[in-house]
């Protein structure tokens, strides 16, 4: 069950992971984008950390909302509104549910509504879709997260900045899928899926 406590740990760990891997995310984005995905999300992570230090959350919706709003207002670029919308949609759903399936699905729907990407377009969506399926069937593992990530390598980007590379985008991991992989790895670590 997604409790405010567990989710706080999750978000914190996610922020730390992003910050630790800022250079790597930038590197992935240099290959097929404009090299700032790590910098963008690290800026967001720092702001979330600050926000969470000054607030006690007894309510999942408020927590997701603050995360979403902070991402929207600090990250910019493509990933800011996408991750931001995901968390804001999760906040809306969290008003009535603490079911992680429903929450994540709401997040994905938000991303797809905002960015209009389908599966196979080499975006973060290609990490979210298989992960959510696995969560639903109770089979999410680090292996699956990593495999889904690797699959973005062979895809040709048709959304976002990487789409300008056409065929040349093939052979590189999508940076947004990588940051989403971190999101789900830390979700597992934080025990959000545990009873």
């Amino acid at each position, binding site marked *: 069950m997604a409790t405010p406590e567990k989710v706080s740990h999750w978000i914190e760990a996610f922020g730390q992971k992003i910050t630790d891997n800022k250079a790597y995310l930038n590197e992935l984005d240099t290959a097929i984008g*404009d090299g*700032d995905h790590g*910098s963008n999300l690290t800026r967001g992570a720092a702001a979330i950390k600050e926000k969470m230090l000054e607030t006690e959350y007894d309510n999942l919706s408020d927590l997701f909302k603050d995360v979403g709003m902070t991402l929207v207002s600090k990250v*910019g670029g493509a990933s800011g*509104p996408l991750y931001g*919308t995901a968390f804001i949609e999760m906040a809306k759903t969290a008003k009535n549910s603490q079911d992680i399936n429903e929450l994540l699905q709401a997040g994905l729907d938000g991303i797809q509504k905002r960015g209009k990407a389908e599966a196979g377009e080499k975006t973060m969506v290609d990490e979210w879709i298989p992960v959510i399926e696995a969560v639903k069937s109770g089979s999410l593992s680090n292996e699956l997260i990593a495999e889904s990530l690797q699959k973005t390598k062979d895809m040709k980007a048709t959304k976002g900045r990487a789409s*300008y590379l056409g065929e040349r985008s093939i052979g590189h991991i999508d940076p947004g899928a990588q940051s989403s992989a971190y999101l789900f790895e830390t979700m597992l670590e934080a025990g959000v899926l545990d009873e």
Partner: protein
Amino acid sequence: MKKIINHPDHVVDEMLNGLTFAYDSLVERLPDTMVIHRKADKNGKVGLVSGGGSGHEPSHAGFVGKGMLSAAAAGQVFTSPTPDQVLEAIKASDEGSGVFLIIKNYTGDVMNFEMAKDMAELEDIEVDYIVVDDDIAVEDSTYTAGKRGIAGTVLVHKILGAAAEEGKSLQEIKELAEKLIPNIKSIGVALSPATNPEVGNPGFEIGDDEIEFGVGIHGEPGYRREKLQPSKDLAAELVQQLKKAFNWSKGDEYAVLVNGMGATPLMEQFVFMNDVKKLLVDDEGLNLTFRKVGDYMTSIDMEGLSLTLVKLEDPTWLDYLNAPVETISW
């Protein structure tokens, strides 16, 4: 990375302060924001807001002022501004007749500006927008995020700015924008990549004897890499692409902008303009009634330039291009 900066994280903030200090009779920075707003008197006209990632100076703050933009929101370098910043720009620019947004066609920009529009509408401000996608280097297809917005955007600022100054309504400006956009096309060539100070390394690699056609203003890949060649051959390639895209006839009236990418000396830009003139005027017989050369939409310290043409379908567009403005950089 050899740059005159203090810390990569402070570049945008310090740059906006430096700009505001230098030109405080023309512009102000809205407190606690990344928004540059003009100081001209409010007059109840439609507000014009643009912006985008930083690194394209003088875009967009350099075009804030009477006759052009009401405000510009600056993002981090090469990163779209966030919706809350754009919202502040919109609020400061609303004089009761609504606000029109000029957005360059990048996934991030479009999403952030659209979110800002939604937020402004919640505050009862009428907002409409246009997405500029003048870069013909990328074919518009379902396989890309669409054509990119580059230097032509500045001419959109100018033409819509003059229309807004003339008192046109939000609806009229939207219609004008929709007529205008298909008539603006640009294409560039890069000799060297930009180095984003927040990243620290050049955005792409290119040989000492190579150039790349169609590179975007964030270093997005172009359509062909070739050996370095004379200005006239570069001009011929860009003109040929524009010719295919416009399908013009002798005597057609166009505006032309040669735009430097940030580290291209004016010397080279003028040499290039001379070649463009030979091709477009002497060979193709076009009537280039508006001409401009210089750094308008840059890519930090990229070497290269872009060529923009506007088909002047409507005679008022030329008047709008020539109308006086009070900005830092037009």
